[in-house]
């Protein structure tokens, strides 16, 4: 394999991994802190992509469309937490699975009613629509580098917020003992609503920035959801650090699987997961 070709695949794998991390971090955050298995997380990814596509019909700039889509996603996430999920905190995990499964059905149908069953695309914004030449025949698109940069910046930002701010301290405290946090006078309901909305925003943002290099269509949320579950479980449920490493591992495994054994690309991701869990039954960082 040519060294430049190899490098491009590594970059692609890292870019896909960073994007997966952005989606998966919300999933693992919500599970780690609130104990909720949120199957509808992939639906927020879909929501972000479709909202951006829809807003782009009225505004010109991709950036503006994304900025407008995020508060809508946050509101949807907050409302779902406040109206439905909140009832289930003391219930069995399986009740949450069933409720959020119901939400997936509703999201998928709402998507079909509002935007139809066609597959859409979004143009890469002109300012980022060029490539860095590597050799005479190979080059690397700048938009993918931009995605990686945004995801990496958010990963660092998230680390700082969780480790260094008061809000982050509440989140960490809520994860280990929510009753104690409530007893200390912190509004846990509001905190959980905020975390759920934050998760929704992270997923929606990922869907929005990934839209120009992938397609927008029915069922896109389900595919992402399953891959993100794989990431979260490999990393160790509830661990942000684990989600980060798991996402990179899966991003690279998927990319190289597609290059080296195209027939078994989808297989490779699940094989990686099976191997990791057989060696470490509770994930890399449980």
């Amino acid at each position, binding site marked *: 394999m040519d060294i430049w070709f190899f490098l491009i695949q590594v970059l692609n794998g890292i870019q896909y991994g960073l994007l997966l991390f952005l989606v998966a971090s919300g999933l693992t955050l919500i599970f780690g802190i609130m104990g909720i298995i949120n199957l509808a997380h992939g639906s927020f990814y879909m929501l972000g992509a479709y909202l951006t596509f829809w807003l782009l019909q009225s505004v010109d700039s991709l950036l503006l469309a994304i900025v407008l889509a995020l508060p809508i996603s946050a509101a949807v996430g907050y409302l779902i937490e406040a109206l439905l999920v909140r009832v289930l905190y003391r219930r069995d995990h399986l*009740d949450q699975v069933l*409720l959020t499964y119901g939400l997936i059905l509703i999201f998928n*149908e709402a998507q079909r009613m509002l935007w139809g069953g066609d597959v859409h695309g979004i143009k890469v914004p002109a300012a980022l629509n060029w490539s860095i030449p590597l050799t005479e025949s190979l080059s690397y698109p700048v938009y993918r580098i931009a995605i990686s940069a945004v995801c990496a910046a958010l990963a660092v930002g998230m680390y700082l917020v969780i480790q260094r701010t008061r809000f982050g301290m509440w989140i960490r405290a809520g994860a280990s003992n929510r009753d104690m946090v409530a007893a200390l006078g912190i509004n846990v309901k509001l905190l959980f609503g905020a975390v759920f909305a934050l998760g929704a925003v992270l997923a929606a943002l990922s869907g929005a920035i990934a839209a120009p290099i992938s397609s927008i269509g029915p069922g896109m949320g389900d595919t992402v959801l399953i891959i993100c579950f794989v990431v979260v479980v490999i990393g160790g449920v509830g661990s942000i650090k684990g989600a980060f490493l798991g996402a990179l591992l899966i991003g690279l495994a998927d990319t190289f699987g597609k290059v080296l054994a195209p027939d078994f690309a989808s297989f490779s991701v*699940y094989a990686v997961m099976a191997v990791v869990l057989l060696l470490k*039954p509770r994930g890399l960082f449980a």
Partner: protein
Amino acid sequence: MSRLPRSLSILLSAAIILLAVYPLFGDALFPNKHAFLMQKLTGIMVMAVMAMSLDLLVGVAGLVSMGHAAFFGLGGYMLALLSPEYSAANLWVVLPAALTVVALASAVVGYLSIRTSGIYFIMVTLAFGQMGFYFFNDSKLAGGSDGAYIMVKPAVEILGVSVLNLGDKRTLYYVGLGALVGVYRLLRVLLASPFGRVVSAIGVNENRVRGLGFDPVAYKLLAFTIGGTVAGLAGFLAAIQYGFVNPATLSWHHSGEALVMVILGGMGTLFGPAIGAFVFELARMGFESVTEHWLLPMGMMIIGIVLLLPKGIGGLLLQLFSGRSKMEGGQ
């Protein structure tokens, strides 16, 4: 698992009798849709078998599997692979062969999965299920993603005389009903046995079971294998009915639907998940006939049931009927 309240047993038996006599009156009740309904009901009874087999894992042993459809699909694929292209397979050969393969596959998957627990178990079984899906989807073994047809239904002969014509829709209906009742009785007997009691105890508190000197791993593995094999039987019957198998039968969507039937019907009650299968499929049919956007009311129904009935439909029935029988006993 304790015995059902008598009034509830009577109600369930009445429902089975109703299903048994339905083909006799179906024509008069629904003149235009009878054949369609009978086919639908056959499919639902087969799904009820699948849901009960999953309940053995989820509701009884506490093993929440998201890859159960893999065994369902494998059962169907075994029929497709073992059937000659243009002549009938012998049921007495293909059924045991298919179930043996499914049992072996579930034993291997079970052996590797039950080392994990909780959400990890959910995900490992999901991973194995998806591996099964991609195995049939990407390989050329049985038509790849297009699936494979079973042109001729298997022959059921005793001493060279055909005893059941599986091509006949009504016969197939009664085969489905027989499977539903037979598997229910079988699982009930199993759960009442010492083995079943240990498995139920593992579902409640695995550490105590270990403390009592049992090896939970062996019991869980056997329960997983039995559950998988019964799901394989359901898949085998479904493949006979539709004459077609495709990778979607193994996918996580299908596993998820079965899990929804179990939770909706009430975990661990065995009859509940069977009812869950009927409610789920009939609701889907009803909503589909009213609106093309049937997923919307379906999702709302599921959410409504979670919020209002924490123990599912089976739990509600048990509560209703045990309450009444206590009152009767008191008087």
